[in-house]
């Protein structure tokens, strides 16, 4: 059996869970295993029917009054209960922030660890070989699982398509789970003041990364942005250093954009950045490291010093515009 985790907040689905369902279904076919979806909740979760509309054997509501708001302690206890009751072969999840928070704890408690943030898999001799990105995206590693089941596997967002999850019909069941002491008290989640710059509407974005070296050099990128009529954006370290305000940050903890043109200057292309801009129409990367992962998704690349390239770009654009 494969257990797949359905993540939700107040019974509203986190859509990446559909990717996890697609992954679990695919693995299930390859290994001849059925899929059960697990939904931790404090009530008869209204989401269960929606999930039962996918090709799963069962949707299991793991129920306890302490599962209303997420805490790692309550989730770990709930999962321990479910896993001990069902003895699954695989536990499949999306590599979300919440999963990062509790999955290694559950695994460790059962004497396992997580093979996390995988980008694909293949089945070999009845077992999975998983591929993970290492060294900040510069290399891939094929990884095999050790020891006995259960095996814990998480997939990177985008590794599977949520809309490829097969429809079907599963039965909904409830399992009352025991949860011990919860040693943390959550407050309500909140969003920081709304971004004053909305980059989601931008047609052209010039984004700078750590390759820009200093706050003064932001002006170099600004000139290019001005020449193109573009908005300026940045990778996270630039905003962490307060060289640009946080509402210019692109990526998993910033804005997700899809402009016609995205020019990345001195950005390495870490996955947390890429998820925020990979749907841009055309991606240009300027980076002095030919092996920077940003080139894997770029349409056009200049391998070299951005401080040489950008002034020429500005001049040539001025010429082209006449």
């Amino acid at each position, binding site marked *: 059996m494969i257990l797949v985790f359905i993540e939700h907040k107040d019974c509203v689905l986190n859509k990446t869970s559909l990717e996890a369902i697609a992954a679990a279904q695919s693995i299930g076919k390859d290994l001849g295993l059925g899929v059960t979806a697990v939904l931790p909740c404090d009530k008869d979760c209204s989401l269960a029917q929606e999930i039962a509309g996918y090709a799963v054997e069962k949707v299991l509501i793991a129920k306890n009054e302490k599962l209303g708001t997420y805490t790692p302690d309550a989730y*770990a206890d709930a999962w321990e209960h479910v896993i001990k009751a069902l003895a699954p072969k695989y536990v499949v999840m999306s590599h979300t922030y919440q999963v990062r928070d509790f999955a*290694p704890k559950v695994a460790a408690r059962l004497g396992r660890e997580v093979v996390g943030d995988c980008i694909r898999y293949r089945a070999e001799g009845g077992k999975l070989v998983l591929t993970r990105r290492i060294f900040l995206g510069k290399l891939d590693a094929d990884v*095999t699982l050790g020891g006995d089941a259960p095996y814990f596997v998480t997939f990177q967002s985008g590794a599977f398509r949520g809309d490829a999850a097969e429809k079907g019909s599963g039965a909904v069941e409830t399992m009352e789970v025991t949860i011990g002491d919860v*040693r*943390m008290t959550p407050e309500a989640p909140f969003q920081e003041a709304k*971004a004053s710059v909305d980059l989601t509407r931008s047609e*052209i974005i010039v984004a700078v990364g750590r390759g820009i070296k200093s706050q003064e050099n932001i002006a170099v990128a600004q000139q290019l942005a001005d020449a193109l009529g573009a908005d300026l954006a940045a990778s996270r370290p630039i905003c962490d250093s307060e060289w640009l305000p946080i509402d210019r940050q692109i990526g998993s903890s910033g804005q997700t954009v899809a402009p016609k043109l995205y020019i990345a200057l001195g950005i390495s292309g870490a996955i947390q950045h890429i998820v925020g801009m990979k749907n841009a129409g055309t991606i240009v990367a300027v980076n002095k490291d030919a092996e920077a992962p940003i080139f894997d998704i770029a349409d056009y690349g200049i391998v070299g010093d951005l401080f040489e390239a950008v002034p020429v770009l500005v001049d040539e654009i001025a010429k082209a515009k006449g």
Partner: protein
Amino acid sequence: MKIIVLMKQVANKDAVLRIAGDEKWINEADVAWQTNESDGYALEEALRTVEAKGEGEVVVCTLGPQGAKTVIKDALARGANRAIHVVVDDSKSLSSYQIAKTIADAIKEENADLVFTGLQSDDASFGQTGVILAELLGIPHATIVIEVDRASLGDTLRVKRELESGWYQWFTYKLPALLTIQSGISQIRYASLKGIMAAKSKEIREVTPAVEEFASASAIQKVYMPLKTKQTQILGNGDAKAGAVELVEKLRSEVRII
């Protein structure tokens, strides 16, 4: 107040990575090393927390070969009070669980009030060593912490976790607890000359553990360059200026944005 900070030595971000002959890792022979990025922030946050409290000590702990001492020396120069070096020559052959277990054994008797780790390493990036360690120590944890409410520090501590897409959430933890710290939580201080001098006389406790077998460790079979998903046109052939000229032409004729 005692805070233990886990710090790991990793290959320098800008190092040119060459795949090793056995295709199971990189060739580390001429790689430059650095402290894992988020671990530097974990140290900074620990120092600020103790400073705000007005008493206590910060103890750094690293697991690795003798060469990993540079991580410790740098941390002591920045203000950590003392260090624990869990000496394992072949630390690469250990999985996250083994690292966490070995560190747990080495620090258990310290009875720290708080343990800080980075949120993930810049090499293997499992992001689980801290969470496993918390479970093995029997203490609660919070991951991806982006703010610590230092004024709240007592028997409990209030911390802000980063959630996805610009959402955040505060949690209050009973101590002892383990936090995995996000990069950018604050500005990292530089080591002062005074700090570097003072570091020379600080205690580094070496532990030489017997590492237990761990059957459930995953194993790397092969390391390789990522498969390209897109056809990238590389312009200028390594000449940035020529590339820029070609790019503007492409933006005009192919992308039609100019």
